[in-house]
């Protein structure tokens, strides 16, 4: 068997990635059996990311029946036994427009933490809605609680683009009507939740309708799901507020002896969270409060005059300062350290959150301890209302008051993802127990 085909047609069948856009990472979320794995299989198949031997394996398993696309992503033995996806799987495909990374998140309720994993860091969320599970004749179409939960989680974690894909329209009697009624229910829900959907697309993942191939449907004139994803723009945090860089790694030997003061300066590496940094800028170090001028700036492999937000920069100051991993560099006067704050806490651990207990926290690149002062409420996913609660269990999302061992340069997660998020780790087990999203200082 030759692995290489000579004809040109085969070469252009797997097209290269073009365009200056970053790869788009998106998650797929839905309830069990909503067809997530089938949708991903469809995207991989139609973009020719599935190779011959993988197809062979599916055909062998199918033993004559139509192939089951979901088997492509259900990778672990345990989930093949149970027939559900139990962990986030990452899949890759490319079109002429863009490279894509799919984070396949399970819809199974007890594995919500994996969906949080898939959502944190994703550029878009595709929330699948199974048209066959909803009563479209009801006066008000009631969405499934999981659909609300997935969309709310994506919004809470500030996934920049949320897309609803109404699936299995091939299996309902009146597709146009079902689409219209479910779309209206989604629009009403999104309005209540403050979500601005990037699109609501009627699809059949099984057949490929409006996934990669346009399929006319009365009442829908929009693009296919794939075309929509190709055009989603990169979204970054608001640029105002000055430069901000969490120091990740302190490297050696900037400023060679010939060029400057002669000292072998340390290079402070980190990914810029906000603003840009240029040679000549004055920056303050948190927590020491000392300031210095940027004498030299490194990008990977070369010296540069300026580095923009989202990229790693190596900063060399014009004088020796005591700076270590975990510190922050920022435009002087812009950081407002706080020690007690209101936050949203997404709890991911099977052991419930304990008020007053010390947990490890990671903020930026700093580890420190902190504790929950009080649980104020728990979010009811069906009504979006805060409900009285005094504890949080696995998969709960609540409002808490939190206190840290030292003051931190915290900002609201709604406007600054890097300075506004903390990881909560159980000191006894080292498990990642929760995600803390900062709201306001107290």
């Amino acid at each position: 068997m030759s692995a290489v085909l000579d004809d040109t047609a085969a070469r252009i069948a797997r097209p290269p990635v073009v365009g200056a856009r970053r790869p788009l990472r998106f998650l797929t979320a839905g309830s069990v059996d909503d067809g997530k794995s089938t949708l991903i299989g469809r995207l991989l198949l139609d973009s020719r990311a599935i190779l011959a031997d993988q197809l062979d394996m599916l055909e062998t398993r199918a033993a004559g029946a139509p192939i089951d696309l979901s088997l492509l992503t259900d990778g672990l033995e345990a989930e093949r036994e149970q027939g559900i996806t139990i962990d986030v799987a990452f899949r890759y495909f490319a079109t002429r427009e863009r490279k894509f990374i799919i984070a396949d998140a399970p819809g199974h309720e007890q594995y919500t933490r994996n969906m949080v994993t898939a959502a944190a860091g994703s550029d878009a969320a595709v929330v699948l809605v199974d048209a066959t599970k909803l009563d479209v004749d009801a006066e008000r179409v009631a969405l499934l609680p999981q659909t609300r939960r997935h969309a709310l989680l994506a919004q809470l974690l500030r996934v920049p683009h949320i897309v609803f894909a109404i699936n299995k329209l091939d299996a309902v009697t009146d597709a146009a009507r079902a689409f219209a009624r479910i779309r209206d229910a989604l629009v009403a829900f999104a309005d209540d939740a403050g979500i601005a959907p990037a699109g609501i697309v009627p699809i059949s993942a099984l057949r490929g309708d409006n996934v990669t191939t346009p399929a006319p449907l009365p009442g829908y004139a929009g693009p296919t799901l794939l075309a929509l994803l190709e055009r989603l723009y990169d979204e970054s945090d608001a640029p105002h507020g000055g430069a901000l860089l969490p120091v990740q790694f302190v490297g050696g030997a900037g400023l060679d002896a010939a060029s400057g003061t002669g000292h072998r300066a340390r290079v402070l590496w980190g990914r810029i969270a906000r603003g840009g940094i240029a040679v000549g800028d004055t920056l303050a170090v948190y927590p020491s409060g000392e300031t210095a001028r940027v004498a030299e700036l490194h990008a990977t492999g070369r010296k540069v005059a300026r580095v923009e937000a989202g990229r790693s920069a190596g900063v060399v100051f014009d004088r020796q300062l005591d700076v270590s991993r975990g510190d922050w560099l920022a435009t002087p006067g812009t950081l407002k350290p706080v020690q007690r704050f209101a936050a949203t806490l997404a709890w991911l651990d099977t052991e419930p959150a304990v008020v007053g207990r010390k947990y490890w926290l990671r903020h930026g690149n700093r580890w420190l301890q902190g504790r929950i002062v009080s649980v104020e409420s728990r979010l009811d996913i069906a009504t979006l209302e805060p409900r009285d609660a005094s504890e949080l269990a696995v998969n709960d999302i609540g409002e808490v008051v939190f206190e840290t061992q030292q003051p931190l340069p915290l900002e609201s997660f709604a406007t600054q993802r890097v300075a506004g998020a903390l990881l909560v780790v159980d000191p006894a087990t080292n498990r990642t127990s929760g995600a803390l999203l900062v709201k306001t200082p107290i």
Partner: protein
Amino acid sequence: MNAPMLVERLLPELDLAQLDALEEEAIFILRETAAAFERPALLFSGGKDSCVVLHLAEKAFKLAGQTSTRLPFPLLHVDTGHNFPEVIAFRDRHVAALGERLIVAHLDDSIARGSVRLGSPGESRNGHQSVALMEAVDEHRFDVLIGGARRDEEKARAKERILSHRDSFGQWQPKEQRPELWTLFNTRLKPGEHMRAFPISNWTELDVWLYIQRERIALPSIYYAHRREVVRRKGLLVPVTALTPPTLGDTVESVSVRFRTVGDITCTCPVESDAANAADVVVETLAVTVSERGATRMDDRTSDASMERRKKEGYF
């Protein structure tokens, strides 16, 4: 190894901006690993993925023009004793040229100690690597191993985190994986445990070859077309070597081949190819219809779940 016209004609609109994004992410993970752990090691076999990771590490930790600096960690190779000689020669030449420190853990030493017992003298040693690897981790007290595994290689790997926790037996617990939120990596370990770090998790085989071409990364010669004696067996080209001699009835052919992956000599097969350089491989990779492991690894075909089983046992 200049990019020939062919690639430019075939990929007229090819824009490498996405490679910059992948490089940035990989270097970020390498710096994170070096800063967050006390005793890292970079797994370096001379294989193409580890050559890419080593190149990224050089870029991450050496400023432009500073060739005298060393990486903040040693390189580690688990030598099964069943390697292609070209790869071992390349490994030693490359490491010497860079001036890095290489630690070699020999599987033969584990066999001599009795911690590895082979079922038969000629069997594949891939599955036994984990023992020698864990012995090296214990001896050198490594707390993180940096590797070149990619999520697109195989279904079990598609579920691997970027920083992946291993218990004190070196085992992967797929259901106990730590949620990985943004870049707030949970780097906390208990004594005896270690982490695996995968900087090129999000790269595909095509990305790797595009990057090798763009960065002019040197690879062992067997990654490019050469004539080799092979036997056709179950759709695979099995190389004829001292460890894998032809059996009665086999027809030995001389074929122009290259290796897509390089592992234990007893279970790694080449594919037919005329690709003389990385640009040619890019062209072939765009046209390829068989996945990397499907075409080249006899041991992954054993069952759908073979990779997952080996990972649970501590395999890289």
